[in-house]
Every structure is written in C-alpha cells, then in structure tokens.
C-alpha cells in the first residue's frame, strides 16, 4: 500500500518535472501552458492577496448547499423507492439513464426560473448529484442482510428503530460512497455553471482570467481548485476507510 502511494507520488512529480522542463525549453508555447512553478506562483498570489476570497466562499457555499440538498433528497427518494417496488420498477430505467442526459442544457432554463446568481447553480449541482445519492441509497438499503432485519424483528424493535438503528448503519458504506459522488458531481456542476454564466465564483474567475489572457491567474486558480477538491476527497476517503476497516470490509 505504502509502496503504491510512493510510486503514485513519484509519477506525479515526474510529470510535473517534465512539464516544467518542456515549458522552460519552449517545447510548449508559453501562451498555451505556463510552467508548473509559475502556476504555483499564481496560486500563491491568489491566496496571499486574498482578492479571490469572495469567489472561493461563493463557490463553496453554492457547492455546500447543492451537496446538502442532493444528499438529503437522494436519501429520502432512495428510501421511498425501496418501499414502493411498483414505482421503483417504473422509474428504474429513468434513473439508470439519468447520466446520459446533458444536464447543462437546462442551465438557461434555470436562469430564467431562478434568475442570475446562486440558485440556478445550486439547481445544476443538485440535478447532477441527486441521482447518484438515490442509486447508492437504494443499493445500500437492498443489501442490508435479511438476517439483521430478522434479528431486529426478534428484538422487538419498532419500525423507526429498525430504520435508524439497523438499516441506516448497515447501509452506511453505500451512503458514504454516494456522498463522495455527490461532492464530486456538485463541484463539477457548480464550477461548470459558473464558467458559462455567472457573475461571481471560482469558475467565473477562471473564465474571466482566460478571457483576459491572464494565464498566471487562470492556471493558479485551476491548481488551487484541484488541490482543494483532492484534499476534500482524500479526507472523505480517509473517513470512509476508518468506517470500513472497523467492520473488516477493507
């Protein structure tokens, strides 16, 4: 495991070094890609000067709202569908083909509906993420071992107790996997939405820098966003790992 991590970091370092070399030897046009060291400087400038703070806070807030809404609604929807097998059979194909729909085509519609600002972005992030949570929830609930449910029944648990104390913790690994997808999808949805049409936010700033040929700011911001999402994902994964290890699942 440790070895795999070492190899991974080595690979990343090699690629970065190669890019640095390619840029400084002018194999690559500097107006297209700037060297990683310059990207780092750009990112540092953004952080130190603090002029992007508003944009960062704006994006994170929008993502957080989309994550909260889509995981809550996805959880409820998934749960409801496991309780209504007929409805489930009816909507199953829709859920399964959901990610074949380019959700972004609805973005203009959302702007008309919600106006410019945060809410059309929340809607995009939500639509993108909610089905991932729904599907994970259905999986998790369906995989609760029957014998655990029978044990709950034998211990005379109420329905609510069974749902909260047996089904929920038993499905937790799947719910967690769903949450990780939700975070990733919400980021994609929101940042991409900001790219297209928004007057604030991380994606908007990146697009703005791009339009002004400000490569340093653009690559710095991209780097910052990558580091941010990777860190968030790694901490979720670490949490998940602890949860699974305790149960001997990994």
């Amino acid at each position, binding site marked *: 495991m440790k070895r795999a991590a070492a190899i991974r970091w080595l690979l990343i370092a090699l690629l970065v070094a190669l890019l640095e070399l390619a840029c400084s030897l002018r194999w690559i046009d500097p107006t297209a890609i700037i060297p990683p060291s310059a990207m780092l400087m750009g990112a540092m400038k953004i952080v130190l000067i603090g002029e992007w703070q508003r944009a960062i806070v704006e994006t994170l807030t929008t993502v957080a709202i989309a994550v909260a809404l889509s995981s809550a609604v996805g959880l409820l929807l998934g749960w409801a569908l496991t309780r209504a097998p007929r409805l489930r059979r009816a909507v199953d194909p829709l859920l399964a083909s959901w990610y074949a729909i380019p959700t972004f085509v609805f973005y203009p519609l959302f702007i008309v509906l919600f106006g410019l600002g945060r809410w059309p972005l929340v809607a995009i992030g939500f639509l993108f993420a909610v089905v991932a949570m729904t599907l994970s929830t259905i999986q998790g609930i369906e995989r609760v071992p029957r014998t655990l449910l029978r*044990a709950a029944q*034998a*211990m*005379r648990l109420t329905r609510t107790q069974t749902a909260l104390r047996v089904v929920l913790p038993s499905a*937790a690994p799947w719910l967690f996997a769903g949450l990780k997808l939700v975070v990733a999808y919400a980021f994609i949805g929101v940042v991409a939405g900001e790219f297209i049409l928004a007057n604030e936010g991380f994606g908007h700033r990146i697009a703005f820098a791009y339009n002004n040929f400000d490569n340093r700011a653009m690559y710095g911001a991209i780097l910052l966003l990558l580091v941010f999402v990777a860190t968030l994902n790694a901490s979720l994964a670490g949490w998940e790992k602890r949860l699974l290890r305790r149960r*001997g699942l990994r």
Partner: protein
Amino acid sequence: MNDAHAKLRGVKRIYRGVGKQPPTHALGPVDLDLKRGEFLSVVGPSGCGKSTLLDVLAGLARPDEGTIEFEGKLVQGEVPDGIGVVFQEDSSFPWLTVRENAGFALARAGMAPAEIKERVDATLSFMGLASFAESYPVQLSGGMRQRLCIARTLVTRPRLLLLDEPFGALDQQTRLLMGDELLRLWRETGATVLLITHALDEAAMLSDRVAVMSARPGVILDLVETDWPRDRDSRIVSEPSFGAVTARLWSTLRGESMKSMATQ
C-alpha cells in the same frame, strides 16, 4: 393441569410462489407441546421446514393455518416478550462493538444505562466474551461471533430460547464444547430451549426430547425421550444408551433424508 410453555396446534406454512412459481407447502400440520424448562431439539433433513417452524413459533411469520400459544397467549405476527431467537446465520451488527451488540436490545427497550452495563458485563463473562467487550465482530472467530449472538439474546432473559442451527458453521470439536455451554446456560437460566439442528449426535446429546421431522412438508414423525440427567455434558456420547438414541433417530430419518435428497 397443562404446563405447556408453548403449544402448536395444526400449524401449517405455505410460501406463496413469486410470479408464476407454484406455492411451496413448507411445513405442517404440526402439533407440538413444549414443556416448561425442557430442552427439546428438532432434527430433520435439510429443507424440511425447520427454520420455518422456528419462524412461526417465534412470531416472525404467521402460520397459514393453526395456532401457536406462548405462556397461554396467542402468538400473532409479532415476537412476544419472553422469546429469544438465535439465527442460523451470524446476525451480529458489524458496526457495533461486542458490548454494544450485547446491550442493543436492552438499550432499544429503554433500559437505564447502568442496568444495561451490569447485565451485559454479567452475560459477556458468562459467555466467555468479557475480554472481547471492546472488539468488533469482525475481530472474532466464527464460534465467538455465534456466542455473541447467544449473549445478545440472553441479556433479555428469555424464558423460551429458540436456536436455529447456531453451530452449523463450526467445526466438530467447537460444536461439542458449544453444546456443553448451551447445557450450562440452560441449567443456569432455567429457560425452555428449542434447538434446531441437522446433527443427530448433537440432538441426542443435548436434549430431553428430540422431535424428528419428515421431508418437506415437515411434520413430526417421532418424539424421542432421552432420559438424560439434568447435569449432563458432552461426555454422554460415550454411554451405550447414547448409541441407542441416535440409532432410533437415524432409523426414522434415513428414509426421509433419502426422499429429501431425491427432490433436491
């Protein structure tokens, strides 16, 4: 005087088929009286309806015909207070420690934490699990996990303990020792025990009475009394009369097992 602890009369269970499958007549009609405080085993070929019998007796499923009484009251679609069940498969909760697993039912029933701790500690040391109290089920061996499931049921102090092939997955030596444990807890708790097993020797060694079931649909073909003393243990397997009991069980079961093999 009728001192039957639990009473089954004409109990039948038929599983409705899914879609176009025909229904499965799994059990019965079964008549059976469990005497208060006795140790009764049920043996029968696999698929004959043993687990189904346990389900309806415990109130986990409703019989399609017939009635079940526990302590004079009808059992109807829910598990009555006083019945404890240990399942065939490991049913410990993997996200809880041994201690939390053991105290689970009591906590849900709203018992005070101090009292739960007292009962759980006593039961865990009774079952030889005290040093594993803070471990998770995955860290235990199969035998230990099954013990945990028994402990989790025992803390509720059941007056009727139903066990569905609890040692099915264990090796022979562990089974014999677990059998001794089961006898010990039966003596010390004074509970009525119904043990479902497919192992003839296990049934013969542990029980006051052994019910032999037919191939599906399971009905009771024979009830064998063993006359073992109450303070028996696994060493009984070396008694000559043990051989006589297993021989009688086998003579009834042999034909049924062949039938059950033929239909599977």
